[in-house]
């Protein structure tokens, strides 16, 4: 199964306007299977607390072992400047880049309770708007983060 996913991503379009989004398993172990090997970039979604950031750091190291040159943190559920500062400091100490910032969104637990997608639950909610802006940034830059 992992090998099939890997091969699907390998042949997916590399056109700038076409996207292939792989939602990976929530453990570092899957990365060693190489499922994400042919991705152009890895986005590591992290919350501003140690265990989440530490998982992000481990995953970033594994991604680089796989040969993925572009790895970026997506700082999620940010409640304020202190949270953002914690993620930025962590990124800097570990040679990582913050590719996007998504605010904490009190509407999102409601979407989960309703079994709804965030976009359908409230397209104007702060977190959905932040993700849409990140999408626009990715489209206009043609990439997520600088190489390296």
């Amino acid at each position, binding site marked *: 199964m992992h090998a*099939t996913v890997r091969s699907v991503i390998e042949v997916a379009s590399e056109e700038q306007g076409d*996207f*292939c989004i792989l939602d990976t398993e929530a453990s570092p172990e899957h990365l060693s299977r190489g499922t994400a090997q042919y991705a152009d970039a890895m986005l*590591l979604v992290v919350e501003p607390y140690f265990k989440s950031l530490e*998982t992000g750091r481990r995953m970033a190291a594994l991604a680089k072992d796989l040969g993925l040159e572009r790895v970026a943190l997506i700082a999620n559920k940010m409640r304020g400047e202190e949270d953002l500062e914690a993620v930025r400091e962590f990124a800097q100490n570990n040679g990582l880049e913050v590719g996007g910032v998504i605010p904490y969104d009190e509407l*999102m637990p409601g979407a989960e309770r309703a*079994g709804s997608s*965030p976009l359908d639950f409230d397209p104007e909610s702060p977190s959905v708007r932040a993700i849409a802006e990140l999408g626009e940034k990715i489209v206009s830059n*043609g990439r997520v983060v600088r190489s390296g």
Partner: protein
Amino acid sequence: MKLAVAGKGGSGKTSFSGTIARVLARDGHSVIAIDGDSNPNLVVTLGIAPERMRDMPTLPSDLLRRTENGIELSKTLEEVCDSHSLKGPDGVTLLVMAHPQHAGTG
């Protein structure tokens, strides 16, 4: 562009994956979303009714063949999507690696 999304459980990675897929598709881009989690939930965050996934075949290993260049798909991506995907809102194509209910397989 091919983006892998990862993170600790509960970090919001699946909500992020589903939402970025939807906003890019809504913006007119062709989007394939792949649920690579053995406990798949991407379907919900894409806004697809989960029961539609019940009859959907997951990506099996027999779609692969060994060639002198290594392992590759035995069908085109289009053929794989025709037989193994769902179309969701805004035209997102969903492919799923595993169903949650199949204990002991994989």
